């Protein structure tokens, strides 16, 4: 159960990136989470409200996109997607695969923000 510390890192990271958008309010935070990342999405969502309270992310929605496992199969000389996590074998040729290309992601893909009064004013000045 380390989801609270994961969510806390997300909040810190997004808050930091908001420095470029003064006064902006976050509406949505989109994550990419690998099937092999050892993170439980339900627990992330459960922690979200608590971790965002009193931050510029308060009231925002958490959207999690799962990233499937992709292995490189040396036998087929191709990247192949695995259906589950119970067998690391190529679904085409059934040979074991140990070269992981995707599936451990744990990243913030993007955020949707509503510009604040300060940044709107700045934008107008630039125009």
């Amino acid at each position, binding site marked *: 159960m380390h989801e609270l510390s*994961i969510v806390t890192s997300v909040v810190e*990271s997004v808050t930091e990136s908001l420095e470029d958008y003064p006064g902006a309010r976050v509406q949505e935070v989109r994550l990419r989470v690998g099937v092999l990342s*050892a993170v439980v999405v339900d627990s992330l969502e459960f922690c979200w409200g608590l971790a965002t309270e009193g931050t510029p992310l308060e009231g925002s929605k958490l959207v999690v996109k799962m990233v499937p496992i992709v292995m490189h199969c040396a036998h087929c000389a191709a990247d192949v997607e695995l259906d589950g996590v119970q067998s*690391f074998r190529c679904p085409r040729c059934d040979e074991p*695969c140990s070269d992981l290309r995707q599936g451990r992601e744990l990243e913030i893909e993007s955020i*949707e923000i509503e510009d604040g009064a300060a940044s709107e004013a700045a934008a107008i000045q630039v125009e």
Partner: protein
Amino acid sequence: MTTRIVELRRGILKKNDELAASLRRRYTSAGVFVLNLVSSPGTGKTAFLERTLRELLGQGARAAALVGDLETDNDARRLAASGAPVRQINTHGICHLDAEMIAKHIEGWDGVTLSGLDYLFIENVGNLVCPSSYDLGEAVRVALLSVTEGEDKPLKYPTLFNSADAAVITKMDIAEACGFDREQALKSLNEIRPGIRIFETSAKTGAGMSEWLAFLVEAREKRESLA
């Protein structure tokens, strides 16, 4: 008010990953080979590590250990019986070690410096889930499982076993009494991490320890030649 999407594409554990990368560079330049030992509570990490330290010291190698637990310094005291320098990390409720805890504990360690070591073992908190997300800058991640835990443990915890570089089966001396199905255990490990190096050991009888120690020496030399 306008709404817009800002692309961030930023790793959530970026801080940990960056710190782990800088630790890895420090370990390499100091010439110390670092291993991260991960298992469930009760697998026998401490007994296995104590024997490993004792045997390495007996061969004239310089080895030390950091040991993570939620509370108590019991494991540090047990490991210190090997004669190696040992430092306890108490996480006070946190279920894994992270790079920051390691960075903090390799400083101000009673006369121990990275460049004065050949091997540094990090015994992680007993947990088969969370430690898999946190890079500690180690050269080798070792997953341990005991003969009492069930041969399908790797299938139940694929995220951790898939991230391991080597696997150690412990308590082989009681395998028969437990009805341990060796073939099934090896098969489970190979399903989740094809080709993984597997050591079948007993800290009590010393079975399998010579293969494990030979692996340590060989893996360290290989790393040194790459550095």
